[in-house]
């Protein structure tokens, strides 16, 4: 079943995964990664200069994947391009069949390896959701018509683990009101915050109008958790979580059990529509996870 259908009918839990960033090279690399990941998940997210590092563009990788038969979620961030360039990317990718957009504000340029770059943020995440919804309805921001427009599935991202909680709940509502049909949540290691956020957005009706998809990150050891805690904006990894992995004799297995518990917890919460996986292990753990929870096209 397509990601679009699953978002709308929620017939079963959805599983999506972050497609690895591509650093130039040839289309073979895209094909190789796709062969590994594609059969396991319902859709893949193509990132847009993640963590403010330049890579092969979101549009180029999304089109390549589309041509391989993938169900693609094209992420679009506001950091690097103004409203003209962003709209051109969205309608251009749609021309090639890429119809699912995930709108993000994006990390700041200072998070990346070229901190001296000019930051753009001509639009912000919620505005971009509204602009993409306008394109889906056939109108550029200027009011000019999109020729023979195609309907898009527009979504966004929210971070339940960044304060203030009540604002996060309202912001999720704002994004859904602006047209988001799904929200992929940022990674977090405080399950009680996810619970509070979900309860809030169940109460304000967000979960009726949009599929909510929390994220888990597959890591191999406590070093990776320490790195995220120290270096990545908006992520806190509590010490007891780091210790659980650090004190284990089998860190890769302990790391997996941590993720397994998170997935189990997330899927048990009312309003959660699925799971998004970011894989930093590059082994067979994605396959193990989807099999353990009967997720994805191979198990349905």
């Amino acid at each position, binding site marked *: 079943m397509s990601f679009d259908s699953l978002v709308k009918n929620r017939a079963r839990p959805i599983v999506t995964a972050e497609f690895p960033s591509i650093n130039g090279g040839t289309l073979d690399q895209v094909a190789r990664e796709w062969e590994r990941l594609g059969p396991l998940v319902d859709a893949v997210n193509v990132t847009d200069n993640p963590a403010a590092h330049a890579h092969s563009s979101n549009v180029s990788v999304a089109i390549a994947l589309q041509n391989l038969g993938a169900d693609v979620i094209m992420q679009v961030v506001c*950091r690097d391009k103004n*409203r003209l360039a962003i709209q051109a990317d969205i309608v251009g990718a749609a021309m090639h069949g890429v119809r699912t957009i995930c709108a993000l*504000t994006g*990390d*700041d340029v*200072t*998070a990346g390896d070229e901190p001296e770059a000019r*930051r753009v*943020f*001509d*639009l*912000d*995440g*919620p*505005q971009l959701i*509204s*602009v993409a*919804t*306008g394109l889906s*309805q056939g*109108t*550029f*921001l*200027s*009011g*000019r018509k999109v020729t023979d427009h195609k309907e898009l599935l527009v979504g966004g*991202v*929210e*971070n339940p683990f*960044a*304060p*203030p909680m*009540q*604002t996060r709940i*309202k*912001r999720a*509502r*704002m994004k859904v*009101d*602006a*047209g988001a049909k799904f929200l992929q949540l*940022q990674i977090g290691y405080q399950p009680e915050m996810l619970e509070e956020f979900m309860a809030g957005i169940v109460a*304000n*009706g967000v979960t009726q109008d949009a599929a909510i998809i929390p994220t888990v990150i597959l890591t191999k050891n406590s070093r990776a958790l320490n790195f995220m805690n120290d270096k990545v*904006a*908006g992520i*806190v990894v509590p010490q007891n979580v780091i210790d659980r992995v650090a004190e284990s004799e089998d860190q890769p297995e302990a790391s997996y059990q941590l993720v397994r518990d998170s997935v189990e917890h997330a899927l048990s919460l009312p309003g959660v529509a699925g799971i998004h996986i970011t894989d930093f292990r590059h082994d067979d753990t994605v396959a193990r996870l989807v099999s353990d929870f009967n997720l994805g096209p191979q198990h349905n």
Partner: protein
Amino acid sequence: MTCPKTLRNGPCGGVRENGNCEVIPEMQCVWVKANDRAENMPLLPKSWREEISHLRPPVNNALKGDSSWLNLVNGKDRETPDGWIGIEHKEAH
């Protein structure tokens, strides 16, 4: 200080655990501050307090350098692009 990302619909997802800014760690996020203020002013009309969670339109960059006071007075800042649909395509909640 203003938001380094010049967001009109903040706070972004990079706010730190202590409420400080992703980009300038020693500064409180300006949107966290704005929300705190609005919530701590019970005498503020409800519509003003709600305004803080409404979707604001993209900035009109053509006004860059103009006096913001003048723009406010003649309503130019309230004009939005013709194709801006905001949240109008959905029933209000």
